[in-house]
């Protein structure tokens, strides 16, 4: 193929002529340093190219080399525990190669070729296989068995297959396909902008347990679901996503730092290897893939980063795993889109965003789901997607927020006033919602407790009523409240302070199982019920609220997971405390 020639450079956007053979979304190498770029518009022989590296030093006349293929990621063992930039360049290897600062034009394979993997075949010569079938397994980390799948759009008869220790470049077998013989390897590539195929989508009906009480109890997300957490700066988006990345009951986590802080990625890198998965006791890093395109890294690669991340996530989903992906922040992705669009002088839509922002956002979230995987083993996998949104001034009318809410089913509304009181997670219980409640009640009722749905409704009722009463107090003071209403105000406060508020940095409080959440909530409900009874029997409210057992409800958060029987004792104590009131 012929080389193109640069005629225009405007920040991350380069235009080149003599590009007749280029196709949309092809990767090209720009300039003598061969900076990676992607074709995003074609007009006759002229191509607009977004360049994934700093374009300083490029000028008209510099060459553009075609690669002949679209932007794609490498998929195979070695993804877990790694950190990549927005176009899957391995940042840890780059640091080893070029030092603490990222130099341009570094060309390193995403997955290391010198590393060897122990492959155990699951098929035999003569077996007929189709896309999605398991060829064999590789123990990728101590937490995860990597299934080597027949790549999508591939099928045939296994001619050869061997177990043993292999590098990613080495064939482990041979497949006869209608197009001829193809070597079987431990890795393959897949274009990031194309969703990976599956057999069918299934109804999401199992909760993704995050260990965060306000989420799991009040606004749960399903495995395979999608959720957004918009909020102003400092409201707690990142800490929340980190919490989900740490504690969610997924087998694989893909965390995308898209246009955010370098230190936040360093935080994950330094912390996750030392944190233990609460279920297996293994380091959390063993199930994690990181994509980091921080705010000071090239803008165009920020645009690509969420596609790189979600393609990797789909790959693990296809093995039949539950995968959760976090993107922090999708607003920075949208801004990258806007910047490139502006430089191409496209017609701006709302707030300068291109008209296709909404469709791109919806298409991204649509890649989430619980699916029946390809292949003959009828496996199911799920990909849950949680996106942070950072609207200007925290204003929810922002187009990125509004378009996101059209695409996702859970909305966690961060509230700056709560953050100012350091009530974390600062998720507002009045404006948030989950559209999965109906789907999940069956599971929660069966797995946790039959009265779970009812208990949740009770809690939401108290919190809603509190808001109404607060309005009244603001106008005319507390005087007019009935005793029952005062009790309700107190119970609501207990719900907020002793249940919804959760310290991310406390060893015992950072994570709560569904069982613990249920028991905590139940003691508050029990206390409330007993209080109502006592009130109706004429016991003074201050005697009820002065019961020492309340002090224990306050400390419920610190009860260790292996000591949940404590709650049964506490329930008894509540009952006897109230009995004593009557004497």
């Amino acid at each position, binding site marked *: 193929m012929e080389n193109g020639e640069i005629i225009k450079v405007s920040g991350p956007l380069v235009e080149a002529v003599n590009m007749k053979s280029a196709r949309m979304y092809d990767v090209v190498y720009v300039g003598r340093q061969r900076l990676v770029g992607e074709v995003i518009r074609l007009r006759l022989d002229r191509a607009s190219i977004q360049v994934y590296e700093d374009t300083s030093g490029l000028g008209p006349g510099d060459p553009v080399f075609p690669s002949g293929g679209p932007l794609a990621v490498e998929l195979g063992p070695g993804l877990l525990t790694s950190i990549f930039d927005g176009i899957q360049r391995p940042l840890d290897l780059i640091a080893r190669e070029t030092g603490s600062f990222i130099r341009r034009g570094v060309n390193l394979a995403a997955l290391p070729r010198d590393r060897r993997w122990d492959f155990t075949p699951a098929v035999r010569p003569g077996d007929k296989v189709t896309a999605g079938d398991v060829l064999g397994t590789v123990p990728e980390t101590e937490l995860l068995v990597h299934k080597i799948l027949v790549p999508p759009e591939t099928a045939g008869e296994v001619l050869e297959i061997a177990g043993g220790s292999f590098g990613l470049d080495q064939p482990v077998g041979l497949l006869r396909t209608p197009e001829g013989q193809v070597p079987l390897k431990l890795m393959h590539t897949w274009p990031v902008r194309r969703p990976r195929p599956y057999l069918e989508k299934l109804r999401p009906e199992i909760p993704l347990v995050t260990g965060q009480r306000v989420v799991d109890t009040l606004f749960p997300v399903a495995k395979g679901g999608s959720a957004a957490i918009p909020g102003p700066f400092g409201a707690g988006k990142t800490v929340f996503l980190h919490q989900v990345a740490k504690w969610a009951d997924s087998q694989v986590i893909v965390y995308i730092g898209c246009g955010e802080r370098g230190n936040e990625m360093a935080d994950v890198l330094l912390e996750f290897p030392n944190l233990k998965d609460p279920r297996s006791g293994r380091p959390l890093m063993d199930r994690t893939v990181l994509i980091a395109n921080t*705010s000071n890294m090239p803008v165009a690669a920020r645009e690509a980063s969420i596609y790189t991340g979600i393609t990797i996530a789909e790959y693990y989903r296809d093995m039949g795993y539950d995968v959760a992906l976090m993107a922090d922040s999708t607003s920075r992705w949208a801004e990258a889109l806007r910047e490139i669009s502006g430089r191409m002088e496209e017609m701006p839509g709302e707030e300068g965003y291109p008209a296709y922002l909404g469709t791109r956002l919806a298409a991204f979230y649509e890649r989430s789901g619980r699916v029946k995987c390809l292949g003959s083993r009828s496996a199911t996998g799920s990909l849950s997607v949680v996106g942070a949104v950072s609207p*200007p001034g925290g204003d929810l009318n922002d187009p990125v927020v509004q378009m996101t809410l059209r695409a996702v089913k859970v909305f966690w509304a961060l509230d700056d006033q709560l953050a*100012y009181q350091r009530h974390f997670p600062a998720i507002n219980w009045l404006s948030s919602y989950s559209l999965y409640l109906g789907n999940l009640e069956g599971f929660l009722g069966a797995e946790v407790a039959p009265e779970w749905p009812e208990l949740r409704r009770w809690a939401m009722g108290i919190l809603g009523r509190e808001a109404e009463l607060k309005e009244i107090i603001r106008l005319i003071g507390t005087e007019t409240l009935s005793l029952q209403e005062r009790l309700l105000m107190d119970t609501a406060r207990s719900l907020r302070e002793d249940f919804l508020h959760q310290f991310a940095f406390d060893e015992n409080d950072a994570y709560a199982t569904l069982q613990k959440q249920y028991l905590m909530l139940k003691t508050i409900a029990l206390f409330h019920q007993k209080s109502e009874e006592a009130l109706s029997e004429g016991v003074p409210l201050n005697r009820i609220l002065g019961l020492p057992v309340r002090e224990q409800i*306050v400390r419920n958060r610190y009860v260790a997971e292996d000591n949940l029987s404590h709650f049964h004792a506490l329930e008894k104590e509540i009952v006897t405390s109230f009995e004593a009131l009557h004497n």
Partner: protein
Amino acid sequence: MKSLAKEYRSVREIVGPLLLVEGVSGVTFNEIAEIILPDGSRRRGQVLELDGDRALLQVFEGTTGLNPSQTRVRFEGRPLQLGVSPDLLGRVFDGLGGPIDGGPRPIPGEYLDINGTPINPVSRDYPSEFIETGISAIDGLNSLVRGQKLPIFSGSGLPHNRLTAQICRQSRVLGQAEKFGIVFAAMGITFEEADFFIRDFRQTGAIERSVLFINLADDPAIERIATPRMALTAAEYLAFELGMHILVILTDLTNYAEALREISAARNEVPGRRGYPSYLYTDLASIFERAGRIKERPGSITQMPILSMPEDDKTHPIPDLTGYITEGQIILSRSLHQAGIYPPVDVLPSLSRLRDKGIGPGRTREDHANLASQLFASYARGREARELAVVLGEAALSEIDQAMLRFSDAFEKEFINQGESESRAVLETLDAGWRLLAGLPRSELKRIRTEILDRFLPDPNRNA
């Protein structure tokens, strides 16, 4: 290297701070050009866009007095650079790095591209060393750590300069004596303001360990785009090459953003909110992310940018985008200032995101995190009670709310308020917090673990 001699006389257009040269070849994006006036004086420009044989330049010194037919342009084939060497210390430069203290140009050991290169996130070390500023509102509640970027959001007439100078004077890392230095970048501030800092640095002797880049209100506005990058290039050299712990003060970022807006408007770009370019976030990030610590290198860069919020509005794009990039913010409040509280730090919306890794046992004290969380919660409640009291009268408040109200008044007067030359040790700050909490019912102190309460809460009977 390209032939140095080639000069173009083909300036076609001058718009605002921009200059369009035609018929150029071999010019590259972001490179620097020398613009030569008929009288032989020179200005510097930077390539913003290349289209065919046309190059668009921004002129740092402005275009006043330029004439298309009499101006010559020579491209230098390199980005804007700063010559660095240990001799930078103790010197004062203009916004483009030229000496203005009467001294000679320092002999550079090497020239560095002022745009820097991004730190690989893998190479970052997480900042976790507590800096004691001696200021309770910061140390106690929104602690600063080494390598953090923590801006001050202020407004006209508020004492941000006094506070910043106090922080420069008092800051120390507990139990350590290390190479400490200040890089100061002024962008469009007044002579008086700059002079206030310079005097303070002289008085304390800090000037010997400082590098100053000064662009004043009457200096060319476009130069301000280069000034913070000059300063951060110097800081990176001092921190990561010489191993110094550098505090970078950038003031005032609002003037910086306005210079950027001027360029954007002259380029006819689709304006973003309030006319600022839509890439303001990315541009500010390219400044603020140049802070931190790097693994296996001894030094650090701590940034304290100052910005004035137009109309005291935190949602204005400049503070808003800054807050989205930095690791917290210290917000000054006009009402506290009017009430005579110094420093008038509005602690509730203020935040230090790196606090939790910098405090606690072995760093400050084990009660620090719980205590701070409780002070925030109780003060927030007290302020709510104060609002209620305004409408309904204090008598209408519940007993608890009245206690909260008393607490928050005392908190402002005794905890936040302190002298401009008073440096409180962090443990003193924590003890002051406990004394205030002792006035509240113990059952209200839900944010504090029982063991900590038992150990640290002063006995209320003692006060009685």
